[in-house]
């Protein structure tokens, strides 16, 4: 905790604003049952002694300003499990988001706000230039063409059906993963395109409660997709980008005129249409599935389509030994990297948080954890290293690409 609120008026304003929100979010309905605490991987873990229940009480009792100054609200990954578990329907997750939003920009911990600002001003989180971006994707496509000579890399194709977003970590750190994505789209025979700019499939402003940044970034992304005339925007294995878009449309009243899909929904759709020839024996190892919070639980609670069923449909056809972790689907636990936690700067907290995930994966005996989200991938990767585990995360695109048989 640190003193982030400087004046008394500010304090009063924060207290009132949060208390009003708690009221609206149903905080008055809290029955003190403790379900939220029991399901929270970061409940009461340090001297701040915060958990969802205590947070609500503090706000109701007039100490919302105290909540806003705690590190806990940033060590929480906004996974939404508390909201999902609450029998009284209190929207705890919304309260934590609002608390984050009340923290001044320059007091936001770590690099989360900076990342959001970069996206807003440059079109991607990493400040990658258009040239740099196009170079990277073309290079990856070229290499892949050795294996698949007919592969084409569509960039800025007007009227393509699918607009694929990419998480900037890929060109920056894991460019080879791009090849799996290209292979899958190619195998599906899809009409698709990348864009030169506004291809970033994330929205970190959602994590900091920066509503203005969230909206502006979203609108600019939408404008780009509209300018290319695409029918569907496909978020390639990002969780929060997908959810931030769908919920952002509702919040900000945006009528995009095109469909939003998480790419896993697309894999399943194509698979049902019989577009792939598959050989599951290419993935003989035991695989389990992590359900990214923003692609499963959050959309599920919001009434948007979630990828739980589709991910399982796809996996069941591309690998030989799939086991569920427990709990799963909307009851699954966060990877520990959500909500900006990977760059919030609280490494010990994240490590503590991840214990529950490590236990889950251990219990499955899996060699790989299929993780259809770039941030979750990093989160799980970090846990595997930290806890010295033999299992590793793997993107669904990689498993799928491997199982796809091309003639």
């Amino acid at each position, binding site marked *: 905790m640190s003193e982030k609120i400087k004046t008394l008026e500010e304090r009063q304003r924060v207290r009132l604003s949060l208390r009003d929100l708690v009221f609206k979010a149903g905080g008055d309905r809290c029955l003190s049952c403790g*379900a939220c605490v029991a399901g*929270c991987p970061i409940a009461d873990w340090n001297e701040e002694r915060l958990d969802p229940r205590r947070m609500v009480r503090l706000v109701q009792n007039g100490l919302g300003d105290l909540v806003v100054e705690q590190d806990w609200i940033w060590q929480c990954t906004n996974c939404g499990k508390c909201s*999902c*578990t609450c029998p009284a*329907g209190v929207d705890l997750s919304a309260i934590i988001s609002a608390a984050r939003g009340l923290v001044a920009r320059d007091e936001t911990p770590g690099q989360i706000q900076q990342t959001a600002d970069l996206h807003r001003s440059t079109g991607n989180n990493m400040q990658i230039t258009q040239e740099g971006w196009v170079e990277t994707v073309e290079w990856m496509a070229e290499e892949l063409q050795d294996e698949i000579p007919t592969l084409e890399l569509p960039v800025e194709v007007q009227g393509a059906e699918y607009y694929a977003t990419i998480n900037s970590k890929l060109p920056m750190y894991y460019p080879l993963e791009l090849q799996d994505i290209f292979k899958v789209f190619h195998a599906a025979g899809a009409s698709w395109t990348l864009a030169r700019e506004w291809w970033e499939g994330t929205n970190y402003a959602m994590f900091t409660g920066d509503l203005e940044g969230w909206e502006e970034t979203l609108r600019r992304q939408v404008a780009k997709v509209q300018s290319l005339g695409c029918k569907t925007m496909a978020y390639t294995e990002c969780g929060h980008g997908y959810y931030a878009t769908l919920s952002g449309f509702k919040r900000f009243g945006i009528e995009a005129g095109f469909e939003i899909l998480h790419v896993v929904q697309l894999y399943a759709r194509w698979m049902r249409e019989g577009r792939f020839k598959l050989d599951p024996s290419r993935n003989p190892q035991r695989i389990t599935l992590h359900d990214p919070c923003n692609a499963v639980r959050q959309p599920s609670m919001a009434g948007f389509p979630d990828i739980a069923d589709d991910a399982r449909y796809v996996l069941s056809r591309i690998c030989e030994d799939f086991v569920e972790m427990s709990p799963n689907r909307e*009851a699954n636990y966060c990877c520990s990297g959500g909500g900006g936690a990977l760059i919030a700067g609280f490494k010990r907290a994240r490590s503590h948080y991840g214990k*529950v995930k490590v236990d889950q994966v251990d219990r499955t005996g899996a060699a790989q954890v299929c993780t259809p989200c770039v941030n979750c991938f990093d989160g799980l990767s970090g846990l595997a290293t930290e806890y010295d585990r033999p299992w590793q995360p793997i993107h669904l695109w990689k498993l799928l690409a491997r199982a796809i048989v091309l003639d």
Partner: protein
Amino acid sequence: MGERYDMVIVGGGLAGLAAARRAGLAGLRCLVLSASPGSLPYTSGALDLLGVYPTETKRYRDQPWEALSELIEREPHHPYGRVGLGRVRQSLDSFCDYLEAGPLAYSRLGERNLRLISAVGTIKPTFAVPASLRSNCEALSRRRPTLIVGLEGFPSFSAVQVVNNLRDRWPGLRAARIDVRPLIGADQRLNLFSLAAAFERPEFRAAVAELLAPLVGKARHLGLPAVLGVEGVVEACADLSQRLGAEVFEIPLISPSLPGQRLGDLLRRDLISKGIRVWQGAAVDRIVAEGRRVKALRRAGKHRAELIEAEHFVLATGRFFGGGMEASQDGVRDRLLDIDLGAPTSRDDWHMGTFLGAPGHPINRVGVEVDTSLRPLGADGAPLYDNLFVAGAMLAAHDWVREKSGAGISIATGHAAVEAALELGAR
């Protein structure tokens, strides 16, 4: 989702999940919708059939089936009365057999009720218990030398309280306390979850056993608060028992309660493995019907709602806790059915003058009136819908909390609702 189901069940509590299992056994394509994880996490994990009857006398019944016959005769409109003794038996047998064969290894005591030590040292009558609670009942009934162990830093349980309340009739009962906090690590507070996760680890159990070993003495049983692992509880108990040379059992805690949570998790897992999704996270807020035929239910997420179509529907939305029933200052309604449930006109008559006295609060008996097929009745006495059935605690004419009959009512009516749908023509 866009799919069509044979049956959609609303409510992820025991009644909803038991109904879903029954639907699965009948080969129905089924979906369960639940706003929250339901009431199971707040229960002891033990299944109650009938523990007290009649509630006016608070008479404990050792023979629940006998008591059940009596109840059905006196109260034909009680949910047990609606289902009938034969079908109650059938459904209980089916459900208990299934749980007995499963990883939580439930068991019964033949025809008789079991008695369970509670977290405050009172005794709770029940009918079927998971393995981790079985020797709780045995130690109690045989008055075997037993050590109850409390955990330093865990305020939801006092071994001293348990022993003090039972010692007058159980001289061989002792209390002790151990401190496992150093074993968990300085960062970690003692909460239910962190403790349970720790007990799943063999190294932790070994260290705990070392702390306990000098305290065991002549005890043949050790009772610990119910934190002994999540899914791995049976293994955890067996391991500890083996290390200590005494049978280790759990004592169920209150809100939330792991044995209850485990049962819910198991039911959901098994349903999903049979292709029945238990879809949590949003409430159903509307019935879409054409005349007396329900076409769909509306699942209302935070930002968007969707309609889910099916042939038959079972509502098992519970009472007030889960929001299925609502009480305003003037009356009680079922939210989804949108009907008044006929609570006493004056709110002064909803509850007794005491909290815990007999026979129980009148408002607990208020609920949805049904026909013999468990279809909810409208004001005119006819079923509101042809293809919608009701199960569980939301039914009228019972007081599960005083009768100690909650699980039995859920299971029996859950099954009966599905069977009624089948009889009336579900595929």
